C-alpha cells in the first residue's frame, strides 16, 4: 500500500488486512505501556487545511503510539486557500523529509492531487477531502461494526471475517458527505448491504450507480438494520433549500426515542461526529446503550495506527501486497 486516498483503493483482502492489523493495535492499546517502537525515525505530517481537531488528534495519537515523529501543519486561516499553496506547502513538506502526509483538505481530490502530482514522494493518507471521501473513517466504522455484529464484542474474535450479509442504514446528508461515500464503497467491499436514507434533495444525481440501495423513508429502513449510522447535517443546508426547516428534517430523518424502539435488540447506533443533538440525533439515541459513538473514537486510533503501520513499516521499494 503506497497511499490511502479512497476506500475504493482497498479490495476485500486489503481491507481485512487493515481491520485485522487494527485488532492487534487495539490490543496493544489496552496495555499499560501503549507506545510501540515500530515507526521510530519516521516522520508523519498532519497537514490540515480545515479545522478538524478530532481527526487530527486521532492521527497524532496513532503516529505517536507507533513512535513516529509528528509534525502538525495547520494551514487553516493563513493565505493557504488557493491551489498554488497546496503545491508550495507540499514542496516544503518534501524538503522536511515527510515519510507520510496525512491531509485534510476542503477540495474534493485534494489528497489525490497531493499523491499524484509528483510534488512529494511520501505516502499520502486522505483524512477527508471536500465532499469526496474519508477512508479512515469508513475503516473505523467497519471495525466497530465488525466488533459488535460479527465478533459479538469479544476483542479479536472477528479477525479474518468480513461483514457479509450485515445490513447497514446510513441516514442524512449523503450529497455532501465524504463519510457516506467512503462507507458505501468499503461496506460493499466487505459484503454488507447498505441502504442510504435521505430527503431526495440530499442524494446526489448518479447515486443509483452506487453499490447500495436508497430510500426516502427512515422508519422502513430501520427494520432489519444491524447498524444505523446518522450523518451530520449542517443547518446551513436549509438556506439552500435542501430542506425546509430543522424541525421538519428532524421529524422525518432524525433518530429519536420512537425510532430507537423500532430497531432490533442488537442494532447499533453510529455517528461520525461531531453531532448536532436534537437535529439528526436525539440525546436519547446518542447516549443509549446501543450507541457506539464514543467507542468509534478509540477505534479510530487503532485503525489509524494500522494504516500508518501498513503504509510505513515496510520497505519503500517492495510492494507490501495490498493496494
Amino acid at each position, binding site marked *: 500500500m503506497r497511499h490511502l486516498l479512497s476506500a475504493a483503493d482497498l479490495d476485500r483482502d486489503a481491507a481485512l488486512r487493515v481491520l485485522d492489523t487494527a485488532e492487534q493495535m487495539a490490543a496493544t492499546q489496552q*496495555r499499560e505501556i501503549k507506545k510501540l517502537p515500530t515507526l521510530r525515525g519516521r516522520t508523519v505530517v498532519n497537514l490540515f487545511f480545515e479545522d478538524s481537531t478530532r481527526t487530527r488528534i486521532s492521527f497524532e495519537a496513532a503516529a505517536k503510539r507507533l513512535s513516529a515523529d509528528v509534525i502538525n501543519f495547520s494551514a487553516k486561516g493563513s493565505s493557504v486557500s488557493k491551489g498554488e499553496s497546496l503545491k508550495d506547502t507540499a514542496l516544503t513538506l518534501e524538503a522536511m523529509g515527510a515519510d507520510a502526509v496525512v491531509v485534510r483538505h476542503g477540495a474534493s481530490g485534494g489528497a489525490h492531487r497531493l499523491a499524484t502530482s509528483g510534488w512529494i514522494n511520501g505516502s499520502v493518507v486522505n483524512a477527508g477531502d471536500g465532499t469526496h471521501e474519508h477512508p479512515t473513517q469508513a475503516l473505523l466504522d467497519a471495525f466497530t461494526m465488525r466488533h459488535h455484529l460479527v465478533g459479538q464484542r469479544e476483542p479479536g474474535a472477528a479477525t479474518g471475517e468480513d461483514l457479509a450479509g450485515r445490513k447497514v442504514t446510513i441516514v442524512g446528508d449523503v450529497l455532501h458527505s465524504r463519510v457516506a461515500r467512503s462507507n458505501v464503497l468499503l461496506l460493499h467491499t466487505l459484503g454488507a448491504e447498505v441502504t442510504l436514507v435521505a430527503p431526495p434533495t440530499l442524494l446526489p444525481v448518479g447515486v443509483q450507480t452506487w453499490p447500495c440501495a436508497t430510500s426516502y423513508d427512515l422508519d422502513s429502513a430501520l427494520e432489519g438494520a444491524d447498524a444505523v449510522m446518522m450523518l451530520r447535517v449542517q443547518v446551513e443546508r436549509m438556506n439552500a433549500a435542501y430542506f425546509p426547516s430543522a424541525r421538519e428534517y428532524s421529524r422525518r430523518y432524525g433518530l429519536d426515542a420512537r425510532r430507537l424502539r423500532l430497531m432490533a435488540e442488537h442494532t447499533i447506533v453510529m455517528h461520525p461526529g461531531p453531532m448536532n443533538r436534537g437535529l439528526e440525533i436525539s440525546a436519547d439515541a446518542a447516549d443509549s446503550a446501543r450507541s457506539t459513538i464514543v467507542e468509534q473514537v478509540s477505534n479510530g486510533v487503532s485503525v489509524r495506527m494500522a494504516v500508518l*503501520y501498513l503504509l510505513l*513499516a515496510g520497505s519503500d521499494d517492495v510492494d507490501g501486497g495490498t493496494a
Partner: protein
Amino acid sequence: MTRARTLLEAPEIGRVLTRIAHELLERNKGAEGLVLLGIPTRGVALAHRLAATIADVEGTQVPVGAIDVTMYRDDLRHHPVRTLERTDIPTAGVDGATVVLVDDVLFSGRTVRAALDALSDLGRPRAVRLAVLVDRGHRELPIRADHVGKNLPTSLAERVRVLLAEHDGRDEVLIEDAGDQR
C-alpha cells in the same frame, strides 16, 4: 530448484521437546511461576506442546501465551510490510514470573532481541529464559538459548524449515539451499 534434506523427523522432534520440558522443570525446580510464551507462528505451537508435556509430568497446567515481536523488529524497513500476529498474554500477566520464550529456530538472535523488548513493555518478569527447537548458529547479537533441541551447523546459503503438525500437517525439520528463497 530447491534441494531439501531432512534433519529431524517426527519421533525425534517429540523426544527433544520432552527433554526440553524436563530441563525447564529441572532448572525451575518445578512448574511454579513458569509462563511459556511462544513467538509466532511456530513458537506458539511448540510452547503449547511443552506445556502439555509439563502437565503430563507435573500434573499442573502452566500458563501459555503468544508474543508477537513484529512491531519491535529492527529490520522492518528491509522487507515488505509484515502481517501482525496475535499477542496473547495469560491473564495473570508476566510480572514476577519466569518467562520462557519459545521459538522454532534460533539464528541471528534479532527476533529474540525484539521479543525481549516486547516483553519489557508487557511487564517485569523475574527471569527470562529461551527455549528453541533448533539452533543453527550465525548469531549477530550476544544472545544464547538456555534450552536447545538440536544444534545444527549450517551455512548462510542454507535455509532451515520447521514443519509442525499444527500448521503443516506433519512434524519435520528440513534444510534446503536458500537459492531463490531469500
